[in-house]
């Protein structure tokens, strides 16, 4: 189905947080203030790699207006953080490993005084050799960045015998693909407000994608029980994975503890660039072979990921890349070997797509190369290799059957964009401007949701009728622009047949919502669906019984509806939710704990639920300057029922814009492990002028019969297949293969003399 405002009809649901956001009235957590509040700032390392010899804070402490200066000595608990492996110092003791490493934290009466105080802290460094690439890190003489060496994590997956199988291939291609250090580029930089109350309880109001995880990490650092920490983590001005790990929270909490006053910290963009996470740059070498019929036979993959100075989610990201290097294709002989390597290049971590984007770019490019070699049209080559609905997953793991791959393949082929490109025969010129080249390209991908086998992935929520007579749903999810509020609202309105006014939604607060797990990995929609599927019948039954008692009607004739409980074919509620609440006095309240669906096979990182996507684009390459413009985009997505059409479109468009930036301009350039792009004047994000392409989304809602898991998350899938579609289109237009992102103008500029467009030759 072409998904837009008109096809969505009555389900086109204005998001409840929309008006406040577009008018700028919404108060984000970094907009909060408290009486007597101080401003925190963090001293970051001046060097990418050095020994710390001494840290002298006396001059900063003596500055009027400064209330506290903290170093590693002031961390009461574990002086480390990290979601999986806590290896990053909260405040460095004797060594710094990247330019964002924290050395001291200051609380002062104004941000200016705090900044000035940082300049008064004297740090003596002894520079160490800088490890500025995975290559350098893997050399024998490289300095060890961590006790276990410079390899954070290795993956190895093999089936069949690739070496032997390559001999039997009719065509084999091999190439190395390089992808950039993309920055999340959220509008709201990291920050928040931290305060301790008189009873020694800490309230953290700071962005995260997993409030309970922050609570656990903070409890370790502060040496305070988790119950004495409340994390309020919503609403957030964008995250995309970048705020999943702790960022400013330890400093805010420690400074507030020391000073006894509320402390606000809010990164400037520069601080955010310097300290914040980025997408893993990867070097992916693939050797792929097909037989004479175009069947994929052998595929060998080597992945080297630059994970930067600390672990955070580097290992799971590599697991994900390893799993997704085979795409939605059948292949008998596979070898994937991955290494995630420590360097001094910032810190790489979680980012929308989670390691899929890099390998999908490589794999889809391989298929295009094989198509060119064999003469089999690229899309036909894919068809010959598509997985079948009940095939195992990429790592041989049992998965929920899905026909998504074939569905998106088909849907893109019948799209208007494809048909138009087809009728032009792939070549089109602009009369009078022979330097313009137009091209068409398409690519596809399969994307796992949930955290994957081996990582506990629990969720849950609460549903009840509260004292005010509202149907109250509580989840610990965060709203960071993805539209979770609207999605929950729609789900609940459809389940209860009620109005938005009958609802009260509570999210992002560890004191008020039970553990729902992280708002990551395209998992929230599924968790909400599973939780509500369990809780809705319970609450409904209890409310109907109570309503039956109150009204004398048989519960079997009653239904929930707008404003209250109705007779099945009644004209209005016979008892309002408010009256019902008064009678039941808040006793109707249910909690459920669910687990994200996971593959039964013990294959670390492997997924159970997958969504599929295909993207097609038309691009224009201006060979005078090598500038690429995307003129049209079509996306097909197979992710089950569309709960929230506007949110769905927003996620696919947003993911695609991010992928457009990834393909054409975004790269946090580093030289000797220092950022050359320190602000948004040199780090280019796409603007609306770059994203003017016609954009169509085809949503495939059909799931195999009996599928109990309902709508799948679509937070990431819009961002994974666009890059190879664009580079395929560039190849069609210019004959040039792009193996490195972002696409460089240098690689596409052409001398004017001799260029031919249609009838015209220059």
């Amino acid at each position, binding site marked *: 189905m072409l998904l837009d405002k008109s096809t969505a009809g009555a389900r086109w649901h204005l998001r409840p947080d929309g008006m406040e956001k577009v008018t700028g009235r919404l108060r984000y957590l970094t907009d909060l203030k408290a009486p007597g509040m101080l401003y925190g700032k963090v001293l970051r390392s001046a060097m990418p790699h050095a020994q710390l010899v001494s840290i002298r804070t006396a001059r900063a402490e003596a*500055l*009027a*207006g400064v209330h506290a200066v903290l170093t590693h000595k002031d961390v009461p608990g574990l002086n480390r953080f990290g979601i999986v492996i806590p290896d990053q110092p909260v405040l460095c003791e004797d060594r710094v490993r990247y330019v964002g490493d924290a050395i001291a934290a200051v609380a002062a009466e*104004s941000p*200016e*005084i705090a900044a*000035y105080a940082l300049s008064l802290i004297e740090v003596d460094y002894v520079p160490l050799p800088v490890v500025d690439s995975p290559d350098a890190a893997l050399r024998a003489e490289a300095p060890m960045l961590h006790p276990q060496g410079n390899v954070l994590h290795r993956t190895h997956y093999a089936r069949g015998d690739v070496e032997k199988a390559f001999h039997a291939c009719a065509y084999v291609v091999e190439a190395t693909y390089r992808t950039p250090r993309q920055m999340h580029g959220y509008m709201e930089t990291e920050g928040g407000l931290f305060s301790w109350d008189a009873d020694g309880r800490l309230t953290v109001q700071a962005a995260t994608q997993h409030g309970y995880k922050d609570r656990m990490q903070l409890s370790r650092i502060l040496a305070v029980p988790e119950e004495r920490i409340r994390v309020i983590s919503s609403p957030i001005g964008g995250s995309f994975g970048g705020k999943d790990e702790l960022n400013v929270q330890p400093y805010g909490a420690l400074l507030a503890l020391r000073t006894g006053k509320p402390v606000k910290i809010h990164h400037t963009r*520069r601080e955010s660039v310097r300290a914040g996470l980025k997408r893993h740059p990867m070097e992916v070498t693939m050797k792929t072979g097909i037989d004479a019929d175009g069947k994929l036979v052998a595929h060998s993959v080597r992945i080297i990921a630059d994970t930067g100075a600390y672990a955070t989610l580097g290992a799971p990201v590599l697991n994900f890349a390893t799993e997704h290097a085979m795409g939605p294709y059948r292949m008998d002989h596979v070898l994937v070997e991955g290494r995630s390597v420590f360097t001094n290049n910032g810190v790489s971590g979680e980012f929308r797509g989670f390691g899929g984007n890099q390998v999908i770019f490589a794999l889809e490019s391989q298929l295009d190369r094989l198509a060119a070699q064999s003469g089999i049209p690229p899309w036909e080559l894919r068809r010959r290799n598509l997985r079948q609905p009940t095939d195992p997953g990429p790592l041989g793991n049992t998965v929920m059957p899905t026909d998504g791959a074939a569905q998106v393949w088909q849907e893109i082929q019948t799209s208007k964009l494809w048909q138009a490109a087809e009728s032009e025969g792939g070549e089109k010129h602009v009369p*009078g*401007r022979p*330097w313009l080249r137009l091209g068409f390209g398409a690519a596809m991908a399969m994307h796992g949701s949930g955290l994957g086998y081996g990582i506990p992935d629990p969720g849950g929520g609460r549903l009840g009728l509260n004292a005010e007579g509202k149907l109250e749903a509580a989840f610990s999810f965060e709203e960071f622009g993805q539209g979770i509020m609207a999605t929950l609202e729609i789900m609940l309105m459809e389940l209860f047949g009620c109005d938005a006014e009958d609802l009260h939604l509570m999210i992002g607060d560890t004191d008020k919502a039970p553990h729902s797990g992280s708002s990551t990995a395209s998992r929230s929609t599924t968790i909400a669906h599973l939780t509500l599927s369990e809780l809705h019948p319970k609450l409904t039954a209890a409310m109907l019984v109570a309503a039956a008692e109150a009204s004398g009607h048989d519960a079997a004739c009653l239904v929930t509806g707008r404003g209250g409980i109705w007779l099945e074919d009644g004209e209005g509620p016979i008892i309002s939710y408010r009256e019902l609440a008064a009678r039941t006095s808040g006793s109707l309240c249910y909690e459920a704990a669910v687990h994200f669906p996971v593959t039964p096979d013990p294959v670390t990182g492997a997924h159970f639920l997958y969504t599929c996507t295909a993207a097609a684009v038309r691009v224009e390459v201006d*060979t*005078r*300057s*090598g*500038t690429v*413009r995307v003129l049209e985009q079509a996306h097909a997505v197979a992710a089950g029922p569309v709960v929230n059409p506007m949110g769905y479109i927003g996620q696919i468009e947003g993911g695609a814009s991010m992928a457009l930036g990834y393909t*054409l*301009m975004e790269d946090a*350039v580093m*030289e000797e492990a220092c950022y*050359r792009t*320190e*602000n948004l*004047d*040199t780090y*280019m994000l*796409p*603007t609306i*002028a*770059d994203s003017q392409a016609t954009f169509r989304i085809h949503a495939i809602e059909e799931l195999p019969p009996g599928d109990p898991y309902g709508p799948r998350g679509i937070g990431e899938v819009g961002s994974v297949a666009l890059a190879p579609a664009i580079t395929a289109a560039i190849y069609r237009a210019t004959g040039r293969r792009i193996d490195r992102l972002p696409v460089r*103008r*240098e690689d596409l*500029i*052409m*001398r*004017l*003399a001799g260029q031919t467009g249609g009838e015209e030759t*220059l």
Partner: protein
Amino acid sequence: MVLPGLPEKLPHVALPRGVQEAWQLKRSLGERAVYSGGGTLLRTQWENQVQPVPFQLIALDRLKMLRGIHVSDGGMVEVGAMSTLNECIADPLLTRSAPQLIQALRQIAAPAVRNLATLGGNVCSWSGDVLPALLALDAEVSVYAEGKQLRLPLDAWLNTSTRDPHALLCRIYVPPAADGAEDGLSLAMYAKVGRRQAFTASLVTVAVAGRFTKNGTVRGIRIVAGGGGAAAQRLTAAENLLEGGQLSKERLFAVSDAIRNQYQAASDAFAGAEYRAEAAANLVAAHLWQIKDFKAP
């Protein structure tokens, strides 16, 4: 505001009412003072630590002489240096007489910046994107320097080695567009290549002016390239190949070669000089190739 305990990091701001006063203040303080137009470039320079925050800012806001856009003697449009980029874009006189200048202005920064940024500030940044357009138009300037008011071609002012370092740019004079009916086609163009479609620093900018006469010869050709950190440069070798001659394919390719050879482009982490020179050559040659009469036999 000076904060307790902080060194005097924030500059003092002077608001002189006359150009002489402004210039004298600047001269007396030397490097400790800086003129400020819209302050948009200055702010980024301070933030990027390529320029120190000065002791004294000399804000030019109250100088009447630096305001207003009108037609002056000889039909030139004169523009006060403190005119904002958006004021210039909205001005009907400029739109009529110098469309390529308007094109250049529209591609600088974004609307909010263009509301503050001044034409004078762009010129005095020495690498502003407007410079190739103004040089191609053979604009003139009036400056207050060495204690007096001077008027001279922009080209000459930019390239004098003895320029008064405290010179205050007062007005910019844009020659009238040659009357289209009288003799053939205008060769005017402006193009900017950046790292994205809008709101981007330039990698390359080129501007061309001149005429392609009815009898098929090129007259009054001026070709200028700039962009990135590079100073805007007249590409004289290419001009010499074209001036007085006819347009042919061979000549165009020779012009491209000449541009590639002469243009001293900037280079940074985002694009090399060779690329920029190639792009400048392509943009100019493609533009000339598009001149309609050229293609007719």
